[in-house]
């Protein structure tokens, strides 16, 4: 596709099927070229797992999707809205895109319930009671409704990460981004978070997950993206990706992490 999109003009794609379009995206940190010509389309309901060695640009890539990082070249269109410096567009995109971080980033001065209701009340102007009902429903879904009155510091890492997922879901996002959601967890807590994400995937959420959990990728992903050195090296269905990797770098990477 060689579309040269004018800023502000929606791209010529079928908005009903495409959730995210990244076309020729480049990003630099100072002189360092961190993302090099990224082209990636994500369909609605699709689950993408991004893997690759550390420093390969995986996190930077998904952080560009909700503009926590700014890209300098190319275009990123999220749910029909092209990301530019325009704050209104950024707000629109962030409202529709939930994000879960490696370090949870819960707000320690607010209770679990307040963490979940903050954005619905202040961004969506939802009445407080309605927001609380919604939050309790989602906390039940991630199986920790009984912790609603506690502060984040009183919860285990796995519980905090599930709260972070519930908090993002409270905004009723169309797309969920996961930035190494299990990397900061103790081993025995990884499963509870992955189970929550699996449930989300089964409900048809569009998900982009940066992770080293290859089991999760194999089971849940529709496509696996392998990045190295700031570029996409290989994209394939998980079965093909793991059993029959094409690129030398993919083979090397898989041989290092799969024993």
């Amino acid at each position, binding site marked *: 596709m060689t579309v040269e999109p004018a800023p502000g003009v929606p791209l010529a794609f079928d908005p009903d099927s495409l959730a995210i379009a990244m076309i020729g995206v480049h990003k630099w940190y100072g002189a360092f070229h961190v993302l090099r010509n990224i082209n990636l389309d994500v369909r609605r309901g699709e689950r993408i797992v991004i893997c690759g060695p550390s420093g390969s640009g995986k996190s930077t890539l998904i952080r560009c999707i909700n503009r926590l990082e700014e890209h300098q070249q190319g275009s990123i269109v999220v749910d029909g809205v092209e990301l530019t410096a325009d704050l209104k567009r950024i*707000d629109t995109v*962030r409202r529709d895109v939930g994000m879960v*971080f490696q370090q949870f*980033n819960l*707000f*320690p001065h607010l209770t679990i319930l307040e963490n979940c209701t903050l954005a619905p009340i*202040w*961004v969506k102007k939802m009445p407080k009671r309605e927001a609380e009902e919604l939050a309790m429903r989602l906390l039940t879904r991630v199986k920790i409704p009984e912790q609603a009155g506690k502060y984040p*510091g009183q919860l285990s890492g796995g519980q905090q990460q599930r709260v972070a997922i519930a908090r993002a879901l409270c905004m009723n996002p169309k797309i969920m981004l996961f930035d190494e959601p299990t990397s900061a967890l103790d081993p025995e807590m990884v499963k509870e978070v992955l189970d929550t994400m699996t449930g989300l995937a089964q409900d048809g959420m569009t998900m982009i997950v940066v992770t080293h959990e290859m089991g999760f990728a194999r089971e849940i992903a529709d496509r696996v993206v392998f990045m190295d050195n700031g570029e996409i090296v290989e994209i394939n269905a998980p079965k093909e990706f793991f059993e029959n990797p094409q690129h030398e770098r993919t083979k090397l990477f898989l041989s290092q992490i799969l024993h």
Partner: protein
Amino acid sequence: MTDARLDVLAAYVRVAPEPILPAPIFSRGVLAWTRANLFSSWISGALTLVSLALCLWLVPPLIAWATIDAVWSAPDGALCRAHQDGACWAFIAQKMDYFRYGSYPQTERWRVDLTEIVGAALVVWLLWPRAPRRAIGAALFFIAFPILAFILLRGSDWFDLPIVDTVLWGGIFVSLLTALVGIVFSLPLGVLLALGRRSHLPVVKLASVIYIEFVRGVPFITVLFMANFMLPLFLPEGWAPDRLLRPLVGTVLFAAAYMAEEVRGGLQSINKGQFEGAMALGLNFWRMMGLVILPQALTLVIPGIVNTFIGLFKDTTLVSVVGLLDFLATVENAFKDTVWIGPTIAPTGYAFAALFYFVFCFAMSRYQAYMERRLGRGRRR
């Protein structure tokens, strides 16, 4: 030998749980505390004894000076001049009204009393975390109270209250007014300056940096003089602000620069993830700051903020250099009264002034400790 040990360590299966034992007797109780804190080594033991001796040497004479040797009531200074080894509290009692109101007309002093009572009640309402409907308290304190105080203290023809010129204002109520205005306005202004200093907009950032560094770089007295003499120059003819208002503005502007640096310290200690978490949820800049970042940043720097407040409270004594009659100035004025003149008058007056400032500053300090404990509960990271 070595081989046998290896054999023992090689495999082990517990057959019964280790019992949970009480702590040894010598690590608990008063005796243990005394030994650990007062006599843990011969140096600390010696220091304990020296400190004890110093206390015994200094404290009883001071108490005697302030109580049994003091003159508690007298019509004039004659009795105080006869009892020179004790304080002259009679002087304080006699001059109390002057200390409280300055030259405010005697028949109108109830207006000051009323303002003070209403203000104190609202402050308690606002600072007591479990008080009901604190939002109403805040609205009354920040909107209704200033209007009420202005009408009561200055006077208004509408309410048939004679106008009292600020030249006549003085004493404790002027000190409290200066401190209150300084505290209430310096914090929000300081927060704005701190945000400005961290702003990505170059002009905002530069202006904040210049302001903060300039104000911190000059003495408070200079700021007061500038506010007093330069403020009228910037304003059109006939708009010259009141002689009381000028030092108030100076106080606020001065304290705000210090406050800004305290707040900036708090902002810098907030993890980047908190900003990202808030942004990813779609909160805009002001909501992110107001709901997520500042509540955490300000809690972290409560000690610094209260420190600045305490400094500000004591600095209000400097407003006398631009002609305001604050509490300390009334005390010093009263020394000149020939009826009371004597060697014990000044020490008594200064002791009383010190006590006054100590009570307020210590109260702020205790409130700080209370808030830290309260906010720290359940939120430790």
